[in-house]
């Protein structure tokens, strides 16, 4: 028998037609499945809230590369986003579409741009804000909750990951309730300040245009500290029981947030796209056990694949320190393709 190299390159097998049609077809599919919730601006590759713009309501616009579904288009609707700009897969959208989205949803009360901290996203949203300057009041919040990245002079800063989902829900609720642009922005900033995340991958996703995995992992390896764009992580470890994996993620988050006994958190266990729900619940069980061991109570939770990286297998943990206000906004009605309650 011959020795075969351990690293197997997974073939690209996807439910797609032409590679260049993935994003527009996915948007059309979203629009066809949820005509009561969203309308699709196909030329601009934007998802808009059905029935918008809402006069007098602060509008929330987010966006980013595609491949993270349901983020962001699946979060457009009552109590969350007013528009989401979809870029090419893993590529920030461009200023033109952000400008179009901003103009489409402006209800006269200003627009909040929710931007995940990646150089591309930040720069494109920055150019977009310049394009409407003087016409529409735009505030920007940049999410940077990923503790896997050192926030130092030597990096582009922490990435925006799972905390973005929570922020969009919570700030969206505040906006729906009539908060001013300053208030909604303050709530968004507060969520970002109190949320931290970290993720790991069991397998790499495959960018369709490339056709091969972004990184190759051995059969017994995990990539710890990955982002959502198939970037390699900070370190590689041997595969371990999920109770260990959960420790690797929860520990740094708890430290960074300086969570202490008696604190209450929203615990969000997120699948990376290729991980089935049964595993996410097993992972959530480990996370809950770890937190309870630290005397941290879980006030609210979210388990599912909400910010993904194509078909990557793996999970991320996000913890958000809760207070009464945040709980109230979290519980408020939301009606989007991916999150819905109380309505």
């Amino acid at each position: 028998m011959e020795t075969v190299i351990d690293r197997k390159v997974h073939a690209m097998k996807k439910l797609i037609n032409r590679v260049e049609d993935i994003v527009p077809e996915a948007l059309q599919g979203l629009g066809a499945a949820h005509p009561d919730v969203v309308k699709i601006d196909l030329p601009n590759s934007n998802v808009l809230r059905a029935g918008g713009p809402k006069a007098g309501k602060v509008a929330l616009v987010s966006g980013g590369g595609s491949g993270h579904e349901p983020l962001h288009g699946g979060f457009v609707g009552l109590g969350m986003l007013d528009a989401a700009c979809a870029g090419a897969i893993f590529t920030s959208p461009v200023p033109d579409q952000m400008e179009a989205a901003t103009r489409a949803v402006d209800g006269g009360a200003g627009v909040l741009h929710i931007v995940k901290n990646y150089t591309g996203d930040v720069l494109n949203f920055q150019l977009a804000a310049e394009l409407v300057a003087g016409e529409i009041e735009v505030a920007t919040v940049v999410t940077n909750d990923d503790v896997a990245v050192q926030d130092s002079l030597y990096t582009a800063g922490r990435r925006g990951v799972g905390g973005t989902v929570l922020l969009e829900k919570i700030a969206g609720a505040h906006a729906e309730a009539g908060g001013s642009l300053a208030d909604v922005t303050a709530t968004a900033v507060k969520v970002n300040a109190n949320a931290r995340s970290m993720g790991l991958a069991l397998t790499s996703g495959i960018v369709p245009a490339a056709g091969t995995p972004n990184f190759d992992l051995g059969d017994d390896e995990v990539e710890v500290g990955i982002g959502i764009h198939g970037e390699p992580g900070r370190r590689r470890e041997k595969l371990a029981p999920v109770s260990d994996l959960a420790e690797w993620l929860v520990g740094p988050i708890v430290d960074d947030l300086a969570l202490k006994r008696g604190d209450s958190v929203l615990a969000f266990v997120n699948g990376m796209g290729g991980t089935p729900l049964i595993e996410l619940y097993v992972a959530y069980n480990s996370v809950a056990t770890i937190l309870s061991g630290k005397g941290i109570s879980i006030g609210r939770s979210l388990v599912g694949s909400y910010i993904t990286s194509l078909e990557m297998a793996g999970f991320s943990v996000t913890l958000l320190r809760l207070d009464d206000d945040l709980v109230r906004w979290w519980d408020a009605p939301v009606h989007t393709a991916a999150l819905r309650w109380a309505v």
Partner: protein
Amino acid sequence: MRRAIEAWLRLAAGRIHEHAPELSALDAAIGDGDHGTNLDRGFGAIVATLDEGTIPTTDSDLDDAVVTLRTAGKRLISTVGGAAGPLYGTAFLRASAALAAAGDAAPGAKFVAALDAAVGGISGLGKATAGEKTMLDALIPALDAARSALAAGAESGAVLGAAADAAAAGAAATIPLLATKGRASYLGERSIGHQDPGATSAALLLRALADAAGPDPAG
């Protein structure tokens, strides 16, 4: 001069298309694997706009060159996305403005002024400096080399050649660098040992410029 710029843009688009897989592969190693696809989309859009023939022409060749370059920059901003879209787009816009300001300076001096403005635009927007393992590590050495060549009295072809050579060397010299800007910075030490995709594409663009202007555009 408009024709020279258009020739360069077309040649650059071809080179980018040809090297797109390689650029994306470099990006996959320390980023997200889309740099080649992104630029290919952008330069494809520029060529489509050129083919449409909708860029207005005047009787001033300089004005036409400026508009062509500005249009190209806008197309990049509108179609590339990611980090490279705003950065290259801004670079083209600034270069276009510098060209307009350079009036009737000699070609070599115009090029230096434009490249200087481009570098300023990129470093201003991206808040990066030399040695951070970005496209600037091709462009800054290129600017220095072009400036030296110009100062030494070289003619425009030699100035462009010096810039292209320095950019290629600069791109290769990114391999041992630790990335501290852009996506590659997330990797920390693991970014060392890989060539920066943006520096690589920058070198390709400057080589295309030298080739488009030179005796053998196919070279």
